[in-house]
């Protein structure tokens, strides 16, 4: 297991429509602001375990953890630009994706 360096959240894609999902406190959320944040390696492992079970249950696909930083308002924001794109939508079409609905 890679060394735990930053807080993490768990991403996946909804099986039915492919939309990006985030594991929240009580299930999958479509808004990253409601994502459950792992602050240590054990918590991250727990997120992964749930993710694997959800994948096996055919609810989601493409499940993985990503590093985040916690904003002053408590919102987890991905550190990598790829996942920053995923929480919003295409940067060239602000009218599409999560950003279009205010996420």
């Amino acid at each position, binding site marked *: 297991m890679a060394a735990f360096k930053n807080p993490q959240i768990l991403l996946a894609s909804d099986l039915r*429509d*492919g939309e*990006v999902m985030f594991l929240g406190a009580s299930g999958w959320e479509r808004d990253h602001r409601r994502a459950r944040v792992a602050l240590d390696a054990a918590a991250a492992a727990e997120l992964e375990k749930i993710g694997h079970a959800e994948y*096996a249950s055919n609810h989601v696909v493409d499940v993985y953890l990503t590093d985040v930083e916690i904003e002053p308002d408590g919102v987890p924001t991905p550190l990598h*630009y790829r996942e920053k*794109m995923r929480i919003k939508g*295409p940067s*060239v079409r602000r009218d*599409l994706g999560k950003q279009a609905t205010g996420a």
Partner: protein
Amino acid sequence: MSVHDLSAAARPNAPTTTYRYDEFDADFVRERVAEFREQVRRRLEGSLTEDEFRPFRLMNGLYLQLHAYMLRVAIPYGTLTARQMRCLADIADRWDRGYGHFTTRQNLQYNWPKLIDTPDILDALADVEMHAIQTSGNCIRNVTADHFAGVAADEIEDPRATAEFLRQWSSLHPEFSFLPRKFKIAVTGATHDRAAILAHDIGLRILKNDAGDIGYQVMVGGGLGRSPFIGKIIRDFLPRADLLAYLEAIMRVYNRYGRRDNKYKARIKILVHEKGIEAIRDAVEKEFASMDRSVFSHDPEEFTRIAAYFAPPPYESLPAVSATLRAARNDNPALDNFVAVNVSPHREPGYAIVTVSLKPIGGIPGDATSAQMRTLADASERFGFGELRVSHEQNIILPHVKQDDLPALWRILDAAGLATANAGLISDIISCPGLDYCSLATARSIPIAQEISKRFSDMSRQRRIGKLGVKISGCINACGHHHIGAIGILGLEKKGQESYQITLGGDPTFSAAIGEIVGPGVGAEQVPDVIEHLVDFYLAEREEKETFIDTWRRVGHARFKDALRREGEDGAYI
């Protein structure tokens, strides 16, 4: 199904000059949709795992991307009817987000389909004789062709008959459904290569030999991606009668010796590079000589039957030059520029080939809204026998427009935002979707294209610069063909940031070349400055009628590279 009725083709809403499904084709596509519908049902109920399902969805063109699924629809050799274009628009509205993206493989991608809707989308496509089969996976992909096929003034033969012949041969070919990697074939029948055939696994150039027989120069081992190579000639002249057998022999050699242990070394270009073209030629010729060729024997009647689908429409007898157009051009500078830049010579007197640019200034290369698709469908019916083409340059072609009709067509295109007069100019940029959509991408490519386009928004400046191919890829897979751009831009990740590597000297034509790297990558915000410096240097150095690539070849890479260095600053732009 019978060959289209040529007498009907002259009417508005007429059928067009393209292949029509026969009963076998139609049944097969419907059965395939039904099969996929069942696979989707089983996936959603959980009786198929993702590992089991993924190959099925990919075989039907369905990918999972960054924000949603993506469906890639096959447009064989880039030819579309108005009815098909209208169907693509309807699908965009009903099941997607009102637009589509035309690709460098002459296909169309929807960026937002839902898995649960995909079988219905495929059924809608089947209604107009379309599908998404072999738009993914390690198989022979959509066979591409010159987008001016059948109308180009420099053409020996319409390449679409050959392309369709190969499509039928390669579709679900049992030996080639699980190749070491994907496999791409392109065909041209012209003396100028507009299909980038030397950047394909197999490139076919239709030739006529001294005896007047039609055959093919066969190139093999071209390709872009991580390890770019220009195709090499494996046969100078292959008689048409041997086409299928010879390609079968190439595929067998590839299937036998192509590497399966490392996907980055699995394309035939690597095999050709590592073994050498002579060794590959020997192996192919040996296979060709020893195989039972009777099963691949050429059926001239079948080829003629297929070729008949691409027969010219019933053109009118017209003067070579339109007085109506000349007068309209004199009165309307915008029309004049459009005709000068986006209209190409047609083999038929009084007709023209129109390139409709999908590259408005600051726009997304290759994207068209459903309304624009319908406008194009309507325009093709009103002015061009209901036929359209998709170019690998991500534009739409109206191949049979009367010169007299160009003013009226231009007005319609202009009203729909489709009259940008930049075909072949610096803002006619090829760009893959990049990290805005693609899960493989390492950087964004569309915003780079948009910024360059805006930087050169002055159309008179673009015309002064002249023909200049800028091509952008968002990762090393090179879907944006950056290796063969006169200016190529490759987006990579460097220290957690998007970084762009610039290459110069790439060429997609018969004088094909892979671009050379200028230096270390630059940040996104620097790219337009770098391009502008390169262009300014070219303008200062060029001799009469030289294109950018001509000047680059004459003065050399080193001087272009030096041109990017600036005195008194911290180092250089690059």
